[in-house]
């Protein structure tokens, strides 16, 4: 039978966001795939060159709707490095808490989307219900549900509001119990397992060659996490583990993300304990200079999707000369040809769902 090109997306429900996966199929077996991105290109990097440094923080939130905190964090981090500002402990732990809340709600969004990709609407509803508790925490901490706009150059926007620690601990403790219920829906179901196991296998070597990062990379045995191996914000002072699975299939990536949620809960708990021991008078924000000295800098943090990196070229004025974004999904999606090689068409949503596409940061 002759090969046929099938265009999946940008309206196909499997593509979370606007992107197209062109697949060459022989019957039902996928032979080749070409990801087509660029539907959401907004000229983000060029727009940054016309704005002063503090004005880019809320724009960095819009890079990815569910990982807004980490994106504004990496932006603030690179500018702080260029300015030579060292944060205080309290600001660092506040950023850690906000980062991990962001990671939890982003992974829950992924779990919800994963459920609908496999036709399991119950997972979708349950995961989104749990996500609301973390969005409420975001509202209490920084005023908005998704676009947090929380970090500032030289610290964070505000200190914790009253009773935030109590609310945060309640939400985290509750979530750890409820996540086991969601796991009961997925891991205990033979239908779910048969859809996820042994599809989209990528070897450790290929993952390194494609430049995969994040849970996609840790799902195939590469033990690397920016939080642990290039520590920032006192992550090295907290006691937590990096989950690694060796199989490299879609189920392994699923397992890594679920374990990351448990570890995020642990990090929040420890960061809150550390915040308790730091006096409230500790500086949370220092005044940042308006101009950044000329030079090139880069900073990276661990995004929920992988390693997000920003490269800043400053020329001594109050606007960046160039701000380059290294998006994890832009790199991860380039491996889609390798991932879907030889699988059936029905498996493509399960495989691409575990990559956790986000097009805002990919197209920028």
């Amino acid at each position, binding site marked *: 039978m002759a090969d046929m090109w099938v265009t999946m997306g940008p309206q196909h429900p499997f593509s979370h966001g606007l992107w197209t996966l062109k697949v060459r199929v022989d019957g039902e077996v996928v032979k080749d795939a070409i990801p087509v991105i660029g539907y959401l290109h907004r000229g983000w990097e060029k727009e940054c060159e016309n704005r002063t440094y503090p004005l880019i923080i809320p724009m960095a939130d819009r890079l990815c709707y569910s990982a807004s905190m980490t994106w504004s964090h990496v932006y603030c981090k690179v500018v702080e490095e260029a300015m030579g500002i060292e944060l205080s402990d309290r600001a660092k732990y506040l950023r850690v808490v906000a980062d991990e809340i962001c990671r939890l709600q982003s992974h829950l969004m992924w779990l919800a989307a994963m459920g609908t990709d496999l036709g399991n609407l119950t997972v979708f509803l349950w995961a989104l219900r749990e996500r609301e508790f973390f969005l409420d925490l975001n*509202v209490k901490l920084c005023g*908005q549900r998704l676009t947090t706009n929380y970090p500032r150059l030289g610290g964070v926007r505000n200190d914790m509001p009253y009773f935030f620690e109590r609310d945060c601990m309640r939400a985290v403790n509750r979530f750890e119990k409820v996540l086991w219920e969601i796991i009961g829906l997925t891991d205990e179901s033979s239908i779910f397992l048969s859809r996820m196991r042994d599809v989209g296998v990528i070897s450790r070597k290929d993952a390194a060659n494609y430049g995969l990062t994040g849970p996609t990379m840790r799902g195939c045995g590469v033990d690397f996490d920016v939080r642990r191996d290039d520590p920032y914000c006192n992550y090295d002072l907290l006691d937590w583990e990096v989950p690694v699975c060796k199989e490299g299939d879609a189920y392994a990536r699923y397992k890594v993300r679920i374990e990351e949620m*448990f570890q995020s809960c*642990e990090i929040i708990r420890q960061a809150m304990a550390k915040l308790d021991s730091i006096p409230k008078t500790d500086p949370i924000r*220092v*005044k940042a200079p308006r101009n950044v000295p000329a030079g090139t800098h880069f900073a990276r943090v661990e995004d929920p999707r992988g390693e997000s990196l920003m490269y800043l070229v400053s020329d001594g004025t109050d606007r960046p000369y160039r701000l380059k974004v290294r998006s994890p999904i832009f790199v991860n999606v380039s491996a889609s040809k390798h991932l879907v090689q030889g699988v059936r068409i029905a498996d493509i949503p399960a495989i691409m769902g575990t990559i956790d596409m986000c097009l805002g940061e990919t197209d920028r």
Partner: protein
Amino acid sequence: MPLKYLDKFPKKNNARTLWVLKPMWVTLKKMFKTTFHRPVTIMYPYEKEWVPDNYRGRPGLRFDKCIGCGICKKMCPTTCITMVDSDDNGRTVQRPQVNLGRCMMCGYCAEYCPVNAMIVTPDYELAAYTREELIYGPRKLAWPNSTEMMEVHMEGHLLSDLKKGKNEKISLHCVDVIGLIDGKCIGCTRCVKVCPTEAIEMHTYGEDEKGKPKKFPLFDRQKCVCCERCMDVCPKDAIELKEVL
């Protein structure tokens, strides 16, 4: 720190999973629970979710507090704020007008406002039939019953203070120092006219060679809000803002 989930689950394989009995049991349990439990959803248009006062909805303006300095216009990332002439008991004053069609609700206008006249409001239902309705003038921006939590305070420390060992939290609004660059001022008095807080006064220092009085502006640091409007109108770029860090 042990792994909570990975230590437990890789041991299970397909053969040991009891088909879909466990998910069905979990779902049934939840069904019984939610039947007798109060619902987690709300009937949205009729009842709304409670939001705290610091919720960043549309910006609000306290007309009487505003001094019309234009910092909100300068700090708006989407340039949705314009300063318009509006009537204040017969006097024409400059007040911000927000185009909510462009507003991204970042709360910068409230944060950078030196007198806390701009606030964040918990108002997020902003749908309108026309684009003109989305342009909120200074009077329409008002929010009744504004509380203290709706103000966004920009408080922090100065690095120079911290180096000296002084741990004092200050407002980061008006710490910069405005000053005159020697030999550039021509005494045109434009800066006096635009200063929103009347922090600039012209003083006469002697006479020039033609016999006319020489005028120079004097800046009152107590009143200055560092809005840089005098810098913008100065035809000779004679005014500079020295940053205090």
